[in-house]
C-alpha cells in the first residue's frame, strides 16, 4: 500500500533534545539532570526497570508532566511551556486509551476533527490510516468489540493520522500475549521505517528494545546510565548496572595491582589474573569488577592449555540449567559461582556435577567496570 499522506520527519528536523531535565514529585526525585539528543527519524528506546523514571520522561515530552528544571526541544523549537494539545507529539498509551463511546473510525478521526479539517479530507485520511494498520473492516466497531492486538493498532492509527513530529510509545506491547508481542514489534519497526518518524519507545523489556531500536538509553534511578546501539550496550556496558541489566553476566570483584611491568587483577576470591593486554583506565585501581558473559566462557575438561590471549580459571561444576540451545553450568571457582554456557547439540551428554573443569575466557572479551 502507498501512503502519500504520510511524509514525515525527512522534510523538517523533528529530533528531540532534552537539556538538564530535573523533576521531582514532592520529595521524590524522579529525573535527575537528563541530557539527551534524539536524531530526526530515529527509533529510540528508553529502557529501565519499573520506577526508573522512563515513563515520566516520555510524559514530560508529551507535556503531561512539567519539569522543575530543564528544557525540551522538538527540532529547533522549545516546547517546554506548551500544553499537550499544542505540541504535535503523538503518544500511544500503555492502556491504549481508546474512547469507549466512539467507534474505531470516530476514535481515529478525533485528532483531525480537533484541527477543524474539512470532512472529506478527514474521511480520506482516516481511511488511509486504518488501511495502514489493516483495520478498515472494523472501522464501525466499538473498542470493546475488538481484540487487544486490534485495539493496539487503532491506538497507533489514531496517533499517526495527525502526522505528529514525534511518536511516543509507552510500553505499547505490555498488554499483548507473547506471540503477538513479537509480531507487533516487527510491525512497529516497519511502520516507523515507512513513515521515517522520530519514535521514542518506553519499555522495561530489553528484547523489545534490542529488536526495534536504533539506539537505547538505559535509565536507572532517574539518571541515564548509558546511550548506545543495542550491541554496543551489550558488548561495552559502561557500568555495573548496564552490564547486569542487559543479559546475564558474571562479575568477578577485585582490584588491579601493578607488579613490575605487568598489571594483575587480584580477585576478592584469591585468584590472581594477569591483565597485560587489556586497555586500562587508571581510575579502575581500587575496586572494580571483571565482566564476563557466560557465552564467552569456554568449558574444557582436557589437559591444560596455556594461551597468551586467554584467561584460565579452575573450577568444579556444581549445577546446570538446560535452556534448549545451550546448557548453562554453574561452576565453583574459589567459592565464587561463575556461569558458563555450552552449546547443546542433539545427543550430547552434559557434564556431571563435581567434574573438575578449566574455564577459558578471551582477554578481549573481558570488560572492566566499577564495582
Amino acid at each position, binding site marked *: 500500500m502507498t501512503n502519500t499522506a504520510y511524509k514525515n520527519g525527512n522534510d523538517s528536523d523533528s529530533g528531540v533534545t532534552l537539556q538538564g531535565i530535573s523533576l521531582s514529585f514532592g520529595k521524590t526525585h524522579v529525573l535527575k539532570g537528563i541530557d539527551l539528543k534524539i536524531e530526526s527519524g530515529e527509533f529510540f528506546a528508553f529502557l529501565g526497570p519499573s520506577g526508573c523514571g522512563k515513563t515520566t520522561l516520555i510524559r514530560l515530552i508529551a507535556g503531561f508532566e512539567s519539569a522543575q528544571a530543564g528544557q525540551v526541544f522538538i527540532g529547533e523549537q522549545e516546547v517546554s511551556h506548551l500544553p499537550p*494539545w499544542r505540541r504535535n507529539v503523538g*503518544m500511544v498509551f500503555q*492502556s491504549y486509551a481508546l474512547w469507549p463511546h466512539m467507534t474505531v473510525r470516530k476514535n481515529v478521526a*478525533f485528532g483531525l476533527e*480537533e484541527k477543524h479539517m474539512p470532512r472529506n479530507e478527514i474521511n480520506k485520511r482516516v481511511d488511509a490510516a486504518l488501511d495502514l494498520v489493516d483495520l478498515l473492516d472494523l472501522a464501525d466497531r*466499538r473498542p470493546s468489540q475488538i481484540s487487544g492486538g486490534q485495539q493496539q493498532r487503532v491506538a497507533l492509527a489514531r496517533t499517526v493520522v495527525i502526522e505528529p513530529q514525534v511518536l511516543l510509545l509507552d510500553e505499547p506491547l505490555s498488554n499483548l500475549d507473547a506471540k503477538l508481542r513479537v509480531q507487533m514489534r516487527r510491525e512497529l519497526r516497519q511502520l516507523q521505517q515507512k513513515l521515517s518518524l522520530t519514535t521514542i519507545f518506553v519499555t522495561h523489556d530489553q528484547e523489545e528494545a534490542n529488536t526495534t531500536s536504533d539506539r537505547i538509553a538505559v535509565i536507572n534511578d532517574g539518571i541515564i546510565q548509558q546511550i548506545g546501539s543495542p550491541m554496543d550496550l551489550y558488548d561495552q556496558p559502561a557500568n555495573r548496572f548496564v552490564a547486569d541489566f542487559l543479559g546475564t553476566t558474571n562479575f568477578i570483584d577485585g582490584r588491579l595491582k601493578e607488579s613490575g611491568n605487568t598489571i594483575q587483577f587480584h580477585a576478592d576470591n584469591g585468584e590472581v589474573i594477569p591483565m597485560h593486554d587489556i586497555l586500562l583506565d587508571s581510575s579502575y585501581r581500587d575496586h572494580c569488577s571483571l565482566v564476563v558473559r557466560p557465552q564467552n566462557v569456554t568449558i574444557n575438561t582436557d589437559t591444560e592449555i596455556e594461551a597468551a590471549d586467554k584467561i584460565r580459571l579452575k573450577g568444579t561444576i556444581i549445577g546446570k540449567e538446560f535452556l534448549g540451545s545451550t546448557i548453562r553450568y554453574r561452576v565453583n571457582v574459589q567459592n565464587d559461582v561463575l556461569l558458563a554456557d555450552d552449546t547443546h547439540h542433539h545427543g550430547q551428554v552434559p557434564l556431571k556435577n563435581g567434574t573438575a573443569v578449566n574455564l577459558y575466557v578471551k582477554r578481549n572479551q573481558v570488560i572492566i567496570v566499577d564495582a
Partner: protein
Amino acid sequence: MLFIALFLLIFLIVPVVNVIFVAFQDVTTSQFTLVNFKDFFSTALFRESFWNSLYVGVMTVLIASIFSMPLAYFTSRFEFKGAVIVQSLGIIPLIMPPFVGAVSMMMLFGRNGSINLLLERWFGINIPLMEGLNGVIFVESLHYFPFILINLSAALQNIDKSMEESAQNLGCSGFRLFRRIVLPLAMPGYMAGASLVFLKVFDDLGTPLLLNVNNMLAPQAYLRIASIGIKDPMGYVISVILVVISLSAMWMAMKSLKGKDYATVQKGGGGLAKRRMRSWEKVMAWSIILLIMTLVLAPHFGLTLLSFGSIWSYSILPDAFTFDHFVAIFTETPEFMTNTILYSFLAGSIDIVLGTAIAYIALRTKLIGRKVLDYVAMSAVAIPGLVIGIGYLRTFFAFRVPWLENQPLATWWIVIVIALSIRRLPYALRACTAALQQVSVSLEESAENLGAGKFSTIRKIVVPLMVGGILAGFVTSFATAAVELGMTLMLVSKSADGPLSYGIYVYMQSAAGRGPGAALGIAAVIVVGLCTMISYIVVDRRQKKYGMRETN
C-alpha cells in the same frame, strides 16, 4: 470554582453556622453563653427526648442488623436461588419514605390494627409493637436495614476465596474461621452501614411526628420552632446536638473505612467459597426470607389498602374500596404533585451541574481548596434536613424579596428548591465522582495529545463518558428530593407551595385525610420506584455498552 464555593457558602455554611451561633447566644443580649444548653439539660422533657433519640437510633441499628445478617450471609455463602429476592429486598424498603409507611403500619400493627384485632379475637393477646418508641424503631429498622444489608453483602462479596482457603490451609475452620478471618474483613463495611442507619434514624423527623411520638429530639425541635417561633433558642440547641451526633456518626463511618480497603478479590476470582444448601437449611433460609419479606412489604400493602379503602377503623380490613382518594388528590390538591416534580427537577438539575463540576475539580485539577470544596459539599449528608430548614428560616427571613411584595426570602418557593439541592448534592456528587473515577485519565490525556484543549476534552470525552453516572445522580437526587420532609415542613410557608411530602403530612393529620394521604403516598412510591428503576437500568446499560472497566 468561585461560584460553587459561594453557592455552598451562602446556602450551606452560613445557615448552619447561624444555627450554631444562635444556640450559643443569649436571647436578649446576644452575648455568648452556655445557658441555653444548661436550660436544655435541666428540662426533664429534653433529657428524656435526648435519651429516647439515642435509644431509638441504637435499637434500630440492632434490629436492622438482625434483619440484614442472615440475608447477607445466605447470598454470599451459599448457591442460593433466593439471591434475587434478597437483592430486591435491599431496594424495596428504600422506595417508600418511612413516614409514608408509618401510618399504614399503625393500621396493620397498631393497638387496634389488623394484626392485633386478629390476635385478640383468636388468642386474646395484644402485641404493643407500635406503641411509642417501639413503633418508631419498628418502622425505621424496616426502612433502613437495606443500608446495612447492601454494605455488608458488598463487604462479604469482596472477600476473596483465597483469604478463606489460606486460613483453612493453615488449619483454621468453621466458626473460628468466620470469627478470625471473615468477620474482621467484613467489619468495615458493616460499620459504615450501621453508622449511616444510626445517623438517618437519629435525624428523622417525619416518622416520629406521624406516629405521634413527640418525646424525641427532632420532633421537639420542630415543635418548638413551629409553636413558639424562630426566636426560641431550644430549637437551635437541639439542632446543634443533632449536627454533632450526626457528624460523629459520619466520622465513625469514615474512620471504619479509612485505610481498610479490604477488597481482596483477585483477577478472575470473586467472593467466598459457595456451597449448596442442605434441605433443612433451605427450609430455614426460605422461612427467614419470607418472614422478612412479609414485614418489608407490609407498609406497601397497608398503604395500598388505605389509599383504596373508604373507611378503615377498628376493623381488620377497610369496609369498602373506592377510587375517591385518588380522584381527590388530582382534583383538589394537584399542586402537591406539580410542585414536587418542579422542585425535584430543578434541584436534581442544580445537583448534577454542581456535582460534575466539583467532581472534576476535585479529581482532575490541582486547584487549591479542591478537597475542602469536596468535603463541604459531602458534609451536607450529616446535616439533618430539619437543621437546614431552621437555618434557612433564621438566615433568610430578614431578606425581603422586592419582586414578591417584599415577602421574606425564606418563604419563596425557590428557596425550597435550593435547600433541596443542597441537601441532595452529596448523592449527585457521589454518583458523578464514581462516574469520573471510571474514566481513565489516559482517555483525557490521549485527547489532549491529539490536539484537543481542556474544554474540548471535557465536552467530547469526559462528559459523554460520565453521562450514565450523571443521569443516575440526577435520578437519585430527584427521587430523594421528592420525599424530603423535615426541611420542607420548616420551609413551606403556604399550602400552595407544598410538595408531596408536605401534602402527605398535612393529610395524615386527620383520620379523614388518611385516604387521600395514602393515595399521595402511593404516588410518591411510584415516583421514587420508577426513578430507582431508571437509574439502575441506565447504569447497567452503560456498563454493558462500553465494556467499561474499573481504571485507576
